[in-house]
């Protein structure tokens, strides 16, 4: 272990690091695998190297950073940089979701009504899509996807999605309690509530998987079910991926807590994950409102 110590007015600049270039190669491998798979050059196992490298990347890189942190190399300024970095990263994620929410709004307020002859696009209906009524949810005037007869059902908001909302909201509370416990030095409470949080997270993902299964097998609701299926699965899917990642990060943080990491004053890792978790939560509220409910 490195023995250097935090020097309050020295901003730590790592001298050199192999992880960034390794990370770039990882990304390249991952992308190449995806390309080879999508283009049918190779079977899907072409993705494996990339994912393995990616997992190792996180292990190595975070290990280095955690070790440096534990060794006390980082002063408060470094800590602040990490926090700001995390905040802006989350903001960029928000914008990524915004693109898909934008697609949903556009489809509901513009393209679907237009296809049904609304406003200036009256001829779209008259000439091209004579029988289209443009009622949401829809798989479009061409009746794309769905069951054999082209119909499909949607997941009612008040079933699993409502339960999942409750789960995520609860997990948001538990992570806040855990944070509080960390600040006030109640390590026992911290461990329990943090564990609860990621358990709730994984439960959410489980329910979501169940819901997807239902949708695919029973409801005729698939990724290819017109614009409804597209927006539904892309939004909930990306969200689900983020929940999964978040829950894994919470688990990692929990192990760190068990190892005695973090102090009431210095716990960037914990906070970053907690922020991320809140972000995932807020996105879900948007999803619940605009995808399932309204």
């Amino acid at each position: 272990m490195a023995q250097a110590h935090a020097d309050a007015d020295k901003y730590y600049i790592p001298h050199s690091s192999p992880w960034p270039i390794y990370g770039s190669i990882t990304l390249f491998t991952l992308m190449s695998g995806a390309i080879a798979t999508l283009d049918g050059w190779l079977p899907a196992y072409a993705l494996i190297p990339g994912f393995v490298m990616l997992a190792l990347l996180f292990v190595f890189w975070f290990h280095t950073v955690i070790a440096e942190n534990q060794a006390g190399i980082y002063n408060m300024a470094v800590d602040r940089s990490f926090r700001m970095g995390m905040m802006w990263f989350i903001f960029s994620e928000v914008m990524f979701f915004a693109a898909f929410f934008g697609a949903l709004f556009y489809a509901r307020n513009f393209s679907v009504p237009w296809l049904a002859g609304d406003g200036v696009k009256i001829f779209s209906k008259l000439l091209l899509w004579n029988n289209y009524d443009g009622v949401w949810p829809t798989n479009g005037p061409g009746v794309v996807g769905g069951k054999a007869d082209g119909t499909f059902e949607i997941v009612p908001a008040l079933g699993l999605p409502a339960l999942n909302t409750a789960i995520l909201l609860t997990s948001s509370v538990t992570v806040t309690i855990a944070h509080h416990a960390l600040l006030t030095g109640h390590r026992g409470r911290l461990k329990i509530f943090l564990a609860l949080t990621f358990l709730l997270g994984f439960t959410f993902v489980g329910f979501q998987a169940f819901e997807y299964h239902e949708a695919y097998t029973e409801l005729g609701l698939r990724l290819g079910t017109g614009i409804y299926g597209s927006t539904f699965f892309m939004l909930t899917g990306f969200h689900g991926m983020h929940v999964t990642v978040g829950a894994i990060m919470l688990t990692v943080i929990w192990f760190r807590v068990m190892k005695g990491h973090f102090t009431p004053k210095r716990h960037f890792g914990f906070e970053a994950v907690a922020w991320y978790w809140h972000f995932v939560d807020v996105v879900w509220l948007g999803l619940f409102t605009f995808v399932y409910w309204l």
Partner: protein
Amino acid sequence: MAYAQANDTAHHDDHHDQPATGIKRWLFATNHKDIGTMYLVFSLIMFFIGGAMAMVIRAELFQPGLQLVDPVLFNQLTTNHALVMIFGAVMPAFVGLANWMIPMQIGAPDMALPRMNNFSFWILPFAFTLLLSTFLVPGGAAAGGWTLYPPLSLQTGDSFPMLIFAIHMMGISSIMGAINVIVTIMNMRAPGMNLLRMPLFTWSWLITAYLLIAVMPVLAGAVTMLLTDHFFGTSFFNAAGGGDPIMFEHIFWFFGHPEVYIMVLPAFGIISEILPTFSRKPLFGATSMIYAIASIAFLSFIVWGHHMFVDGMPLAAQLFYMMSTMLIAVPTGVKVFNWTATMWRGSLSFEPPMLFALAFLFLFSIGGFSGLMLAIVPADFQYNQTYFVVAHFHYVLVPGAIFGIMAGVYYWLPKWTGHMYNMTLAKAHFWLSAIFVNVLFFPQHFLGLAGMPRRIPDYAVQFTDWNMVSSIGGFFFGASQILFAIVVVQCARGGKKATSIVWEGTHPTGLEWTLPSPAPYHSFSTAPEIP
């Protein structure tokens, strides 16, 4: 093993003030100057690659009839010329300049997140390897224009996912670069360097970084939807399923319009540094310059529809986008007027950076004026998708963004290398560039107005003359850029020693001029005193 090694290096950090040797210095770099250099070198290479594509385009367009390339290859070249120039040349050049100059201008030892800094650079060579290798796969490179409009872009062959993932990688790189800039500026300023004292280049980059973080993820979303429409049967851009091809245009231009300011705001910053220096007089209205940049950035989010007037847009939207677009002329005008006022009653000398800054001033304005004409909806119905648009955006991009970058390089190069460069050669580069860029792009206004559409490999014979003029201008402009490479390489290798202030007899402001030339490996290990 590797892990132990990493900790080992951490151990040594306190007493490392010299760069590592050999290839590791670059592969494992965490130093802002090394990374800045890599960005700049990469950008120059990409400028030449993108430029070489443009030369083929101009050669094909030299006369009517198809002589060199078939239409598909022509479209591939146009598409990739734009992608390489925008994502490979201009943006990395600005990030390179940011890396070099921001820590020096705010009195910081380095960028805030050095590892991430290296990561964001090293993604780029891989991303462009992917992008450029699309020329080799079945079906060839993407040929649907840099705007990637579906359904056409969905007709791309095997290179389709390569294109999408290359763009994803560029986006990841840009976002990390932008986060680093914001964090550096917000967290690493020397005590006393409050925001309003910050040099204009740093300011312009701060705002640019916000733009980047806000719009690059949206581009990622847009191309992800393309990917799923292509491979997984989604209907985002398919009317039969309830989607709309025009929806892509909205999402793309929500990114695309701020993107064009991403490519020019840092140049504004550079010009605001150079003009005062060689006018020997402080920048006029520095505070309103900052507000002007911020207003431009804000407005850039609400004008995207001006790229889509002819694509079928409700009346109210046409009016809204026209007026919001026109409004951008106001803050941009404030900048132009303040620059002019900076020179007013100054004492001007004409070193290469100043020459490029002046050319920027005149020629960017011309590009801005044609932009304003494009904003007039009825007129845009005639201009849209013609060479008038091509002329507009090359005026703001080449004598705008590219000249801005060159002005910056000529301004700070001695600070980086410790040597003065060959002024005669640099001036020759300037005059050739400034003259031929106009021969190259001015006639394209005429072509567009006379009715020549863009993105065509062959044209009706009445367009021959101006195309010939434009191509000749293009060849000479391209050849002149070789001088730039020569000046830079010579300067890196040696030359007259530069003093710390570099521009003796002028008054450059900014902390970078308090450091010796070449600047020490770690810029400000201890925070400087801000007067």
